[in-house]
Each structure stands twice: as C-alpha cells, then as structure tokens.
C-alpha cells in the first residue's frame, strides 16, 4: 500500500531517476507540499499523537476503565484535578461509576480508532473488490452491483448501520460479548461505506478497460483480471487513499453515533461515543467533564483526520497544483 502510494503520489515532474524510494518520496511534490503546509503538519501531528496515545493506553493510563474491579464507586463524579474538589490521580475527573475520565478517553480513543480503521478496511476491500468486478465484467453484474449501490445510497450510513446492528443483535441474541459487538459495528460500518470505493474503482476500470494495452493484453491471452489489478489499482490508490482517510473520520463518527444511540459499544467498555452518551446525561447538571473530554477528543481526532484527508485530496489532485 505504502509503496504504491509513493508511486501515485509522485508528481509527474518529479525526477524519475532518483535512487531510493525514500529519496524519491522526499523529493516528491507531496512531501514538499506537506512540508510547506502548516495545517497538514499540525493535523498529522495531532493524528499521530492520538494514535500514539490510543495504542499506548494500556501502559500510560492510570486505570483500566474496562476492568470493573478497578472502579471504586466512592470516587465517582469527581471533577478534574484543577477543580478544588478534584482528587489525585484523576486528572480529568471521574464519571458516575468512579471511572477515570482520562483513562476512559485513552481507551475510548483506542476503541474508536480500531473500530474506525477496521471498518475502513472492510469497506475498502468490499468496495474495491465490487468496483473491480462491476467495472471489469460490466453487463448484468455491473448493473446489479451499481443498483445495489444506488439503493444503499438511499439511506444514510447511520441508518444502515443501525439496521445491520439491530438485525444481527436480534438474530444472535443480545448477549453478544464485547468482541462480537466490535466486530458487528465494524461490519455495519463496512457495509455502509463501500459504495464510494466501488464507484471510484469502477469508473477507473471502465476507463482503463477500453485502453489499447488492455485490449492488446487480452489478445495475447494475458489474464485480464491480473492486468486490471496491476494497472488499475495503482491509478486509483490516490483517490482511494483520500476516500479512506475521509471515511475513517466518518466511520469514527458513525461508531460514536451508534454508541450514542445506545446500539454501539456498552457502557462497561466505553468508546468515545459511549462516553459522550453517558456524559451527555450530566452535561446540563454541571458535570461537564464527563462529556467534554471525550467530546473534545472525538472532535479533535475527526478534525485532524479530516484536515489530513482534505490536504491529501488537494495535494494529490493534479488540477490543483
């Protein structure tokens, strides 16, 4: 993926004969553009920080918020440390179960990111695969796939995710363990976001398919799917990467909304959305920290990813250079 990205990212007038990939990347417009864009650097830094914090959560957070035995009800509803009523070690306060908000945010970030990324991977594979198939085989198969895509576009992702989630829970019983729940949300998100990839890949395939070299390759009996994958995928990595970035943000929001509506992750294993849902009950009552910090973390993460996605889209769009 990353290697291909280098290729796609390389602007046409970047020097071709440079020795290593790294050097090529460093010499590319993309890198130059990045170095010049303070916003991109900032967004990248924030994203990196969030990822770092999220995956270091088990080692750096004062508490494991998923372990009920570590929660002490007597520590509940504590305000952040700088408030006179705050108590060490609860830097950002605690929720109504005595859960350390800082730890919960870190673990929540981790969950949100895992769910978001897995969701993106699922939808990416699904979308790219279906897009390749639709574009390559055309005909009835194409019609069916794109019609399904049309139908799916009728409903916003959140509705689809709600439906998928609800159906699965009803079918498998609601006593799903948390891993199954995560998987379920990932699948819901994956099923909600594949259309964009499919459309992008499909149109690219349609263009490529009519090109002479593909026709020629077919004539000499080369396996054409291989050609498609080899020639089409590199061409669409740019757009697909942009879609993936922006979809990561959307997936995180979708997970948060699902959790907020109560069909996502349970309160015993809170993601950012679950934390906001819990905290929302206390927002008006002055216990703002329960909702504020997860809210800020969520908005910050999504904003950073969005900024990055935006920048990437502009940077990879030759028309804008």
């Amino acid at each position, binding site marked *: 993926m990353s290697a291909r990205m280098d290729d796609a990212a390389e602007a046409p*007038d970047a020097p071709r004969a440079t020795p290593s990939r790294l050097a090529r990347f460093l010499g590319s*417009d993309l890198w*130059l*553009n990045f170095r*010049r864009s303070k916003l991109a650097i900032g967004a990248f830094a924030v994203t990196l920080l969030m990822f770092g914090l999220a995956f270091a959560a088990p080692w750096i957070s004062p508490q494991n918020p998923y372990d009920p035995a570590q929660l002490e009800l007597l520590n509940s509803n504590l305000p952040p440390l700088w408030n006179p009523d705050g108590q060490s070690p609860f830097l950002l306060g605690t929720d109504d179960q005595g859960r350390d908000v800082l730890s919960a945010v870190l673990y929540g970030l981790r969950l949100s990111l895992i769910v978001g990324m897995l969701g993106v991977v699922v939808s990416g594979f699904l979308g790219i695969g279906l897009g390749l198939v639709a574009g390559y085989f055309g005909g009835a198969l194409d019609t069916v796939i794109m019609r399904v895509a049309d139908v799916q576009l009728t409903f916003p992702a959140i509705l689809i995710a709600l439906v998928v989630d609800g159906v699965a829970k009803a079918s498998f019983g609601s006593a799903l363990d948390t891993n199954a729940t995560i998987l379920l949300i990932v699948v819901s998100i994956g099923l909600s976001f594949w259309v964009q990839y499919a459309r992008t890949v499909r149109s690219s395939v349609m263009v490529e398919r009519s090109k002479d070299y593909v026709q020629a390759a077919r004539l000499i009996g080369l396996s054409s799917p291989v050609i498609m994958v080899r020639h089409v995928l590199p061409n669409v990595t740019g757009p697909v990467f942009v879609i993936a970035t922006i979809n990561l943000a959307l997936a995180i929001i979708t997970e948060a909304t699902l959790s907020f509506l109560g069909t996502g992750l349970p309160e015993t294993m809170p993601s950012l959305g679950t934390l906001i849902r819990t905290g929302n009950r206390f927002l008006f009552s002055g216990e703002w920290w329960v909702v504020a910090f997860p809210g800020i973390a969520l908005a910050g993460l999504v904003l950073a990813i969005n900024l990055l996605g935006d920048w990437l889209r502009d940077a990879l769009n030759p028309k804008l250079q």
Partner: protein
Amino acid sequence: MTETVLSVRDLRVAFETRRGTLTAIDGVSLEIGRGEILGVVGESGAGKSVTGSAVIGLIDPPGRIAGGEIRLGSERIDDLPPEKMRRIRGRRIGMIFQDPLTSLDPLYRVGEQIVETIRTHTDLSAKTARARAIDLLTEVGIPAPERRIDGYPHEFSGGMRQRVVIALALAAEPELIIADEPTTALDVSVQAQVITLLKRLCREHGTAVMLVTHDMGVIAEAADRVAVMYSGRIAEIGPVAEVVRAPRHPYARGLMGAIPTLSDTAERLTQIPGSMPRLTAIPPGCAFHPRCPNVFGRCRVERPEPILVGGTRVACHLYDARGEAA
C-alpha cells in the same frame, strides 16, 4: 511599416512557485502593425501562449508580468488597473482559444453569448445587439444564422464553433486579435477554412493578429511576419518569407527543416535532438545550446542578444561573431 497596433518591449513574465521564481518569458520584444498577422511559433512550453496571455492581461497568479512594457497603440496597458484592463479585453483586444469545444459556455445559447459580449462593450439595445450578432455569424460564415443564433454550443460542429468563437472575438471590433492555436483542435480540412476566414477578416477590418501556433504550415499560410520562440525567448523574428525560406537561427532552421503543407508537424520537430529544457532548468548562456548543432564556447556562458540580420532579428552568437568578423 504601417501604424503599430501592439508593441511589446523586453517583456518578462515570472511565476512564483514552491520551488522559487520561474521565468516563463524573458525579454521578449515584438511589434504588430495594423492589418498584420504575426505568427508566433515554438514548441509547447516555449512561452507562446504566455506571451499572448500577457498581452491581453490574463496572466493568472502566481504568474505576473515582472518587467518590460506592453503598449496598445500608444497606451501602455501592462500596468493598468484590472477594471481598465477588462474594458480593453474584448473591446480592443480579442482572443481566440485553442479549443472551440471548451471555449463556449455550454449553458448559454451562442446568441446570448455574443449579445452579452456586444452589450458589455457598447450601448446597443438588446435588439440591435442581436441583429449585430446575426451579422457577425453571417460574416464568419455560419449558415442560417437567424436560426443558429438560438442554438447551444454543443449543437455546433467543431469548425462551426470556432467560427462562433471568432465572431465573439470580433464582436466589439477589436484592433488586435490574439489567436492562440486556433486550428490545433480542428480537423485538417476545417483548419484551412478557419485560417482563410481569419485572414479575410483581418484584411477587411484591418485587425492586427497575433497568431500563436506550433504549426509551421499555418504560419506559412497565414502570417506576414513570424517570431520563433524558444524557452521564453525570441530566437528569430522577421518576415515570414525570409524566416521560412532562409531561417538563420539554428533552432529555426531545425523547425523549418521542411515546410509541410497542411500536415502534422509535431513529428518533424522531433528532428531536433533532445527536448526543450524545463523552466526550472534553463541552461546558462543560450538556452538552445545543449541541442544546437553549431554550439561553441561562448554559447554556454553568454546569452545572445537579438541582432538585426537582413530583414530579421536573430538571437544567436553565430551572427554576432560573423558581424564582428565582417
């Protein structure tokens, strides 16, 4: 020579980019007289189109005119405020773009676009403007203009559309028309018609034309004088007969290797080994020296200034040296 319509002196156009300032046009000087067609030739990227854009004031940021001056008649126009420049565009300088397919707004009828142009620059009523639009369409050879005036651009063929574009450029009777590759996107058979039309209109209205093209055939066919551009500089400029028949600059010689009739010249241009340098890597001295068959030491260090040789001006040390010797 007749009265000078356009006079460009030592024009420099620069682009600010992430990698520093690129000079796209460097010291270009040329003049066009009333009723005269000046051909501007060169490879892609030689600065032909940028020169045209500079004249009409359509250099977009990050580009800018970095030096020299442009005069229309006696008025200096390169430093005019935008609003004044706008009034000159269309009114006194018309422009024709390369691709007639994309030059017209697809959402408006051609008549609407012509009337719009006319009324922007004159006080004509809508009705009169429409009558004038029909006249213009007639003049550029659109059949049944009363009916076609209400057609949308996509309903016209390429050649017909280029005629509409020419009509639009002529709408306010400008003194100068900049035709930027007006025939490149057209079928060969249509190219000749359009060139003929351009020549006729130029003659009838006394309009000066800057005909930007990379097609030597078009130049030979239409132009009175010709300027050969290379890497943002004029290599040779002079009467078409002289430059075409007896090119002096080695690059021009390469270009004129054979005057094609009306065929694709792109291939012949490749007869010159190598390719034109990028703007980021213009060599010192004469920009052409890495490809020049006649290169010698001075070419690599000193940039040649244009020298009047016969009826043409040539920027080449070969002639300087000969001049010294003589």
